[in-house]
């Protein structure tokens, strides 16, 4: 997910830099108001943990490497504003001390990995926690959905930046499904890790979770009951299924796979018989505009569907409990 320099043009990177800087400024103002000096070390520790988890890095076809982002975890533990700052620090340190992620692209990376993930994660977590019954399972489900959606949102932000100022020359209809598809999968992992980390903190030190500080959890079950495990698995399945909705339109259109196949054939055939016309020649990008908007729409609908599906299921669960 770390965008290197030269991937997005300077104008777009500068624009993202302005947005990121004002986002950080707003976060600094908000945290400055109620920042106890005890919270700074906690933010540092969360940042260190996220940094360590982000080292689990694997290359993803669509130009960037995939790994856990940690923005929603930071937001749930520290609150959205301090969470943004903690992840932004991780991104800064990676760029300056580990050469991971570009220097001019810092604004883009802070925007995608700190601001978008922390704010989306926080929003989803808070709205779910308020909707769901006050139980530790509900907190974990909310954390999981928050983690998953934050990653997809971050990938969407990247696609938007690529659409505005991408310099890769790879068509948007290849980059979009690859990014969102892969990050839907990464999102599941992110969701599980976020839920488990929040669950572990909830069991031992619930006082540390900023996202719950104003809500009263009546009793915290340190060992989840059987029913809560079933609920957790069910919710996990629903999220995964909803993510399939997101991947499905991509899989059916699948320009990536198709083109890859075409390339393979192109190698063989053009080497053997017709050196002039590989099948790729027919792979002109006719009607990009339609396909582009089509895929973007599909993705947006998919993300919406995920969220709505999550909401519906959790409301049903809640009603059944109260009945």
């Amino acid at each position, binding site marked *: 997910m770390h965008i*290197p*320099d*030269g*991937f997005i*043009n*300077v104008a777009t*990177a500068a624009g993202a830099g302005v947005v990121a800087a004002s986002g950080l400024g707003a976060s*600094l103002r908000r945290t*400055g108001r109620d*920042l106890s000096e*005890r919270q*700074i*070390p*906690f*933010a*540092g*520790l969360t*940042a*260190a*943990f996220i*940094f*360590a988890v982000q080292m689990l890095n694997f*290359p*993803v076809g*669509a130009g960037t490497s995939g790994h856990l982002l940690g923005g929603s975890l930071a937001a749930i533990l520290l609150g959205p504003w301090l969470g943004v*700052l*903690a992840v932004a*620090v991780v991104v*800064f*340190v990676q*760029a*300056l*001390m*580990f*050469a*991971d992620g*570009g*220097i*001019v692209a810092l604004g883009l990376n802070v925007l995608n990995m700190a601001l978008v993930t922390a704010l989306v994660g926080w929003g989803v977590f808070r709205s779910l926690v308020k909707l769901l019954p006050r139980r530790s399972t509900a907190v974990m489900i909310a954390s999981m959905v928050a983690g998953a959606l934050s990653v997809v949102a971050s990938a969407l932000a990247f696609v938007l930046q690529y659409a505005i100022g991408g*310099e*890769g*020359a*790879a*068509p948007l209809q290849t980059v979009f499904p690859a990014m969102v598809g892969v990050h839907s999968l990464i999102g599941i992992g992110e969701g*599980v890790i976020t839920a*488990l*980390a929040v669950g*572990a*903190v909830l069991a031992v030190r619930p006082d540390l979770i900023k996202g719950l500080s104003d809500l009263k959890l009546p009793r915290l079950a340190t060992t989840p009951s059987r029913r809560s495990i079933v609920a957790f698995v069910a919710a996990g399945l629903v999220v995964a299924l909803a993510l399939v909705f997101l991947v499905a339109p991509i899989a059916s259109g699948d320009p990536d796979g198709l*083109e890859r196949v075409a*390339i393979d054939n*192109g*190698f063989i055939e*053009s080497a053997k018989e017709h*050196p*002039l016309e590989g099948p*790729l*020649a027919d792979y002109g*990008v006719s009607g*990009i505009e339609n396909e582009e908007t089509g895929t973007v729409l599909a993705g947006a609908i998919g993300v919406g569907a995920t969220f709505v599906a999550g909401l519906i299921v959790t409301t049903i669960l809640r009603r059944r409990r109260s009945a």
Partner: protein
Amino acid sequence: MSGGHAHALHFHGHSPLHRLPAAVKLVGLLAFVLAVVATPARAVWAFSAYALILMVLLVLSEVPARFFLTRLAIDLPFIAFALLLPFVGEGPRFNLGPLTVSAAGLLGAWNLIAKATLSAGASVLLAATTEVPDILAGLSRLRVPPVLVAIASFMIRYLEVVAGEFRRNRIAMAARGYQSRSALDWKPIAVSAGALFIRSFERGERVYQAMLARGYDGRWRMEGQQVIPRTQWLAGLFPGIVAAAIMVASRLW
């Protein structure tokens, strides 16, 4: 707690680059990378000139080329992607040996490889010649808000705490006969990740209390914040200024 102040990318030395104040190097890095990224892809001569600047700096820094190149490997995933571009790119296609490639894609691949590699090279050079506390001091001199610098300081302090807890966790698991069978063995991984967080936090809390006991009051005292002489600014920014001039020239012609 092994490692002390060193970090993964640092190369201990006393070269002119090592001695430059971190604030100067940070600004110089930004200027250089900005120039590289703003250069049109077709200006191959400009990229060669940037590479030459980088090579001169590398020699000046006394960082071994081997060390530099292995650290540059962080760039590899992007190069792998860039190599795909000629095949998935849009626009007119032509034949390159046995392959049919897109002209725009080929240019895009070159653009990405040249810019990402040169920028990452400059960043590696900064990290190799600057200690972590100096980078933090430089950031705070450049008016980065103190809260961010403080979080970064704690983060770097706690990285070793997390890594230490991780090691102890692994040893404890091995002592109890745990053997990782596959990467999909997610339950023990997940449980230990949760435990890792709590244990690191509680150890970190004790570290913090120890800091309080030794007089930490929420402010980070940076050493060596004396005025940077103008000659050092000039010397440090010189490569960046040259790069900027090359960039302007490449855009004009």
